[in-house]
């Protein structure tokens, strides 16, 4: 494997990636819901590939009952329920706030209906401060047994196509892992006109306190994130990479540079970091540094020499 051979001189790492038309200076960005303005105190947003605030809903939302997070082995479950100040506040405060940074803003949209997605995409996608849209078609926290748009290929296709019709901004579909065949949802997104895929949102999960006999979360169920589920996600990234031509943003359980490299080898062009920022507030910058050291160690000049390069001896899937 020649790419792994130590190259004579390392002339600096090329970390730029293009995600469905959006140019990023490096592949590291926050995961929605684990990032916000108050993190400016702990890291310089200019160092990130993109900024990606919490999913926004059309109207203000109160969110779920507390406790909203609980800890599990190698992970956590959350059921924030998308507490939100609504689109107006977002347009007036959040979008302008990020203008001060030389980093593209990806706006994550959550909505209760296809129409609402279209309406919000119209407003946000056509706002000059927004560089790309991530459609959160996968949030499992809503009532109704964790159902999400992204659990159905036809709905995904319809939704994507309608949103595509209303805006030209790069469109990223954030998929849910709670499906039988993620490839089908990936293809539905591609056919609907998405420019990239975020793989993936959280797994629907539940934890019960054996002393109180109550669920650990006020909302009973929530989404599990963190390193414990990463191997399932690496598999999904690999499957989506085989099935679809769209660039992939890997997401789930990335705690360090090697986790990010693993996702990129599986096929991700960029990587989101969520829960790791709770364990270490500046985790994103650490991940980035570790990617650079890795590339230096192995003499890899361009991050594209890693993407999708997992290597097989024998078995190739059909």
């Amino acid at each position, binding site marked *: 494997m020649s790419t792994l051979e130590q190259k004579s001189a390392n002339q600096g790492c090329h970390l730029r990636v293009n995600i469905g038309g959006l140019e990023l200076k490096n592949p590291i960005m926050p995961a929605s819901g684990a990032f916000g303005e108050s993190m400016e*105190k*702990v890291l310089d947003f200019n160092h990130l590939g993109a900024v990606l605030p919490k999913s926004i809903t059309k109207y203000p939302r109160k969110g779920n009952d507390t*406790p909203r997070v609980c*800890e599990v082995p190698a992970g956590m479950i959350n059921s924030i329920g998308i507490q939100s100040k609504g689109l107006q506040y977002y347009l007036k405060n959040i979008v302008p706030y990020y203008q001060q940074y030389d980093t593209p803003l990806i706006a994550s949209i959550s909505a209760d209906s296809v129409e609402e997605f279209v309406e919000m995409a119209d407003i946000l996608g056509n706002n000059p401060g927004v560089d790309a849209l991530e459609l959160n078609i996968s949030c499992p926290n809503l009532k109704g047994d964790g159902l999400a748009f992204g659990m159905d290929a036809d709905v995904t296709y319809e939704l994507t196509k309608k949103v595509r019709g209303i805006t030209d901004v790069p469109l990223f579909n954030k998929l849910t892992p709670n499906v039988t065949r993620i490839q089908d949802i990936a293809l539905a997104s591609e056919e609907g006109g998405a420019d990239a895929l975020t793989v993936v949102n959280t797994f629907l999960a539940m934890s019960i306190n054996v002393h109180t006999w109550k669920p650990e979360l006020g909302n009973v169920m929530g989404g599990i994130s*963190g390193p414990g589920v990463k191997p399932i996600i690496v598999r999904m990234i690999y499957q989506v990479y085989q099935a679809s031509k769209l660039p992939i943003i890997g997401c789930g359980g990335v705690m360090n540079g090697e986790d990010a490299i693993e996702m990129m080898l599986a096929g991700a062009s960029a990587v989101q970091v969520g829960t790791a*920022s709770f364990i*270490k*507030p500046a985790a994103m910058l650490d991940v980035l540094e570790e990617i650079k050291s890795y590339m230096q160690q192995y003499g890899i000049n361009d991050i594209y020499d890693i993407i999708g390069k997992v290597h097989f001896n024998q078995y190739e899937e059909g």
Partner: protein
Amino acid sequence: MFLEDLFLLGVRVVKDQEVKILSNIQVSERYWHMVVDASGLASDVEPGQFFYIDCGQENESFLRRPFSVYRINQDDQTLEFLYLTKGLGTQALTKLKQGETVRSFGPLGQGFSLQEDAQKILLLARGVGIATLAALAQEASKKGVQCAAILSARSHNDLLAAEMLQGFGAEVHKVTEEDGTSDVENVRDIIEDITARHNIDAAYTCGSRRLSRLLQDITSKKDIPAEIALEEHMGCAMGVCYACVCDVVEDDEIRTVRVCLEGPVFPLQKVMMQP
């Protein structure tokens, strides 16, 4: 301006760093006491603020744990924590030894406000809630503000901060389940007695919903400014994840605010105490 908008404005430096453990010892059946070197901290620490501490990810303690400062020693640049051993995190914390370091993010959140002209304040603590109020008692003592404190606990064993408070010159009342003195009505009588004897400029509470409702009731009737330090399960501890919320009433509107950023200290009257 609303509570929740206030704190995006001030840019205070908060650091996540390894701090050295100067001691970490068991002080009673369920309580431990840890002293750390605070010389590397970026900002001053205020009573009521907290640190988000990595208790050790072994033992499955994946997330960090929030702990308020128990004592702030400016002279020798140390910070003290008092903690109750409860689950994985606090148990893991007891394993850390003098000389080792612990990853600690802070100081975080908004501390107590102590008016310059205050003469006498009232502290109402339940259980390990005293860990949070003690730093305030320490500051009050430094500023010459007199303190009356009611400490409520399961047993005498859990009342270990009483002597420290007395050392600060506080008038300390202890109530316990052990003695059958910790019921709300008895605490009400003690508070009524204190407020009858003294002019209380402000009241502070931490550690019990029941007692907080009691104090809310008394202080609103008597028009005494009061603050409460709240606890909620946290994710980020820096205001981005919205895990740690509670409801406050401002301008007749219910607002859901973050304990880690807009709190943990809130005006007692604004907090909607869950039943």
